[in-house]
C-alpha cells in the first residue's frame, strides 16, 4: 500500500479542516445572524463547489495561483516558492473545495441556538466573544462536529482538484485517491483494492461515530 500517499492525504485533510474551522466559523456566524440583503450571494458562492465539477474549480484556482496572476506573483515574491503543484497550493484549493461541507453545517447549527440565551449572557455582563465561546459554541457543538467530520472526509476523497493543480508528485501532492487511480492504471488491482477498502472502512467508521454522537447530543439538548 502507498503509505506515503495515505499520510499525505491525512495531513492535507487535517490542515484543511483546521483552516476551515478558523475561516468557516466566523463566516458561518455572520451568515447565521446577518440581515444584509446580499447574504444570498455569499451563500451561493460558498455552495458553488457542491455543484461545480472539480475540474472547473481546479482550473480557475490554477489560473488564479499561476505565475502569471498577481496573486501567484505576490506569493512567489513573498516566499520564493510557487503555489501550483505544491502542497500549499493543494491546501488552498482543498479549503475552497470543502468550504460548503464545513460552513453549511456550522451556519445551520449556529442559527438554531436560541437568541434569548445569547441575550441573557450579554445581560449578565459577558462580552460578545465570550458569549460565543461559552454559550453559542457548546450549544451548536453537534453541528460543528458534523462540519468538521464532513470537511475532513470530503478532503480525504478529493480527486479532480488534486489532478488539476497538484499533479502527481509522490510525497508532495500524490494523495490516496490519485494513488488508487495510478494503481488501477498499472493494473495492480490487489493494491488498489486494499487501499480502497481502507478508505471505505475509514469513511464509514468516521461517519458512524459522527451520527451516533450527534444523535446522543441532539436528543439530550432537545429535552432541555
Amino acid at each position, binding site marked *: 500500500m502507498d503509505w506515503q500517499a495515505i499520510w499525505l492525504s491525512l495531513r492535507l485533510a487535517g490542515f484543511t479542516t483546521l483552516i476551515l474551522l478558523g475561516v468557516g466559523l466566523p463566516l458561518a456566524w455572520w451568515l447565521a445572524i446577518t440581515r444584509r440583503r446580499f447574504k444570498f450571494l455569499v451563500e451561493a458562492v460558498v455552495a458553488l463547489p457542491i455543484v461545480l465539477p472539480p475540474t472547473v474549480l481546479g482550473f480557475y484556482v490554477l489560473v488564479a495561483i499561476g505565475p502569471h496572476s498577481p496573486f501567484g506573483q505576490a506569493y512567489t515574491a513573498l516566499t520564493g516558492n510557487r503555489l501550483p503543484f505544491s502542497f500549499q497550493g493543494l491546501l488552498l484549493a482543498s479549503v475552497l473545495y470543502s468550504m460548503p461541507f464545513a460552513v453549511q453545517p456550522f451556519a445551520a447549527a449556529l442559527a438554531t441556538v*436560541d437568541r*434569548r*440565551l445569547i*441575550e*441573557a*449572557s*450579554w*445581560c*449578565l*455582563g*459577558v*462580552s460578545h466573544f*465570550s458569549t460565543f465561546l*461559552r*454559550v453559542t459554541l*457548546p*450549544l451548536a457543538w453537534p453541528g460543528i462536529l458534523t462540519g468538521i467530520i464532513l470537511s475532513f472526509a470530503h478532503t480525504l476523497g478529493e480527486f479532480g482538484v488534486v489532478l488539476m493543480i497538484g499533479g502527481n508528485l509522490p510525497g508532495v501532492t500524490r494523495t490516496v485517491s490519485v494513488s488508487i487511480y495510478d494503481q488501477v492504471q498499472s493494473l495492480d488491482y490487489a493494491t488498489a483494492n486494499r487501499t480502497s477498502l481502507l478508505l471505505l472502512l475509514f469513511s464509514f467508521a468516521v461517519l458512524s461515530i459522527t451520527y451516533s454522537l450527534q444523535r446522543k447530543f441532539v436528543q439530550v*439538548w432537545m*429535552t*432541555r
Partner: protein
Amino acid sequence: MDDALILNFTRAFRDGPTIAVDLRIETATPSVTVLFGSSGSGKTTVLRTLAGLDQLTSGTIRFGNETWADAAREVNVPPQERCIGFLFQDYALFPHLNIARNIHFGLHHLPAREAEQRVTELLRSFHLDGLAKRYPHQLSGGQKQRAALARTVAPQPRLLLLDEPLSSLDAPTREAVRGDLSTLLRALQIPVVIVTHDRTEALALGDRLAVMDQGKILQHGPVEEVFQQPSDQNVARIVGVETVVAGHIQSINEGMAIVAIGNVSLSSTASGLSPDVTKVLVCIRAEDVILLKGDEILQASPRNRLRGIIQSLTREGPMLRIQIDCGFPLSALLTRQACEELALQTGDSVVALVKAPNVHLVPRL
C-alpha cells in the same frame, strides 16, 4: 445629578405600531414599577430597550447621570455595561450548564473563591440547596424561576428588569411564587421594572403602575391610584373597572376573612390566603356591586352592606359608572335603565351590597 430612570424615546417597527414612551421612574427610594398592558402593547419592547437589546429610533434613555441611549448622538451603551439584571419570560437558563454554573455565569469578574461563595449563598437563599448539580430540564417550573432569578441577581445589578416573571408557571405554583417574589424584590433594594398583563401580579408586586396601550403609556402612578382613578375610559378598560383599596386583615375564621378599610369592615372568602398575611389590597369589581336606594331595608344574602353617598355618575357606553363614598371610594357599574328606575343622583344616599366571594384580597407586604 438626577436620581431617576428617564425614558423618553420612540421605537418604530416596519410593520407595527410605533412605540413612544415618556416615563420617569424615581430611583432615590427603590420601588417596583409595573408596565401593564395586553400583549402587543409594546411593554416588552420597552423592557428590551431598557436592557440595551433593542435600539431606539429617536430620543434618549438616562439612568442617574449616565446616558444609556441617545439616538441623535448614536449612543447605545451595550447591555454588558449597563449593570442590569434581565429575567426572561421563559427564564433562558443555559441548557448545557447545571444550576450552579448557571448562577456562576455572570460572576466572571470575581475571584474564583468569592464567586463560589456567592453561588453557595444564592443557592441557599433561593431554596435551591441540593439542586446545584441538576440541569435546567430536570427542574420544576418554580425551581427554574428561582434559579433564573438567582442567576439574574448574582452580579448585583443596579436595575432589575422582569419580563412576565410568573406567566410560564401553572396557577398553583404562581400563587406560591408570587409571595416569595414580592418579598425578594423589596429585599433587593434596587429599582425594579416588571412587565405583565396579569392584574393580580401587578397588584401584588407593584408600587407604581404604568398602563400601556398601542405603544403609549396612558397613565403612570401609584398602583391603587391608577386602579381607582383611571385617567380615561381606555385605562379603565385595560385595568378593569375596579375598586382597589388598602386594608388590614382583622381575623380569619372558617374560611372567612374580616378585613378593615379605615372604619369599615368587609367579609371576604379567604381561600388561599396564608394566615400570616396582614396587609392586603381589597379589590371589588364594579359589576359586582349592587345598589339599593336610600333607607330601603331588604332581606338580602350579601354579607356586606355599605351605606354611602353618591359622588358622581359617569356614562360608559350602555353603562353608568357610579362613584360612592362609603368610608372608602367604591365603584359601581349599572345599566342606564337600572339607574333610571332607582332615580339615582349625585348626593343620594345608597346602600351598596357586595357578596363575600366578590371581595378579592391580594396579599401585600
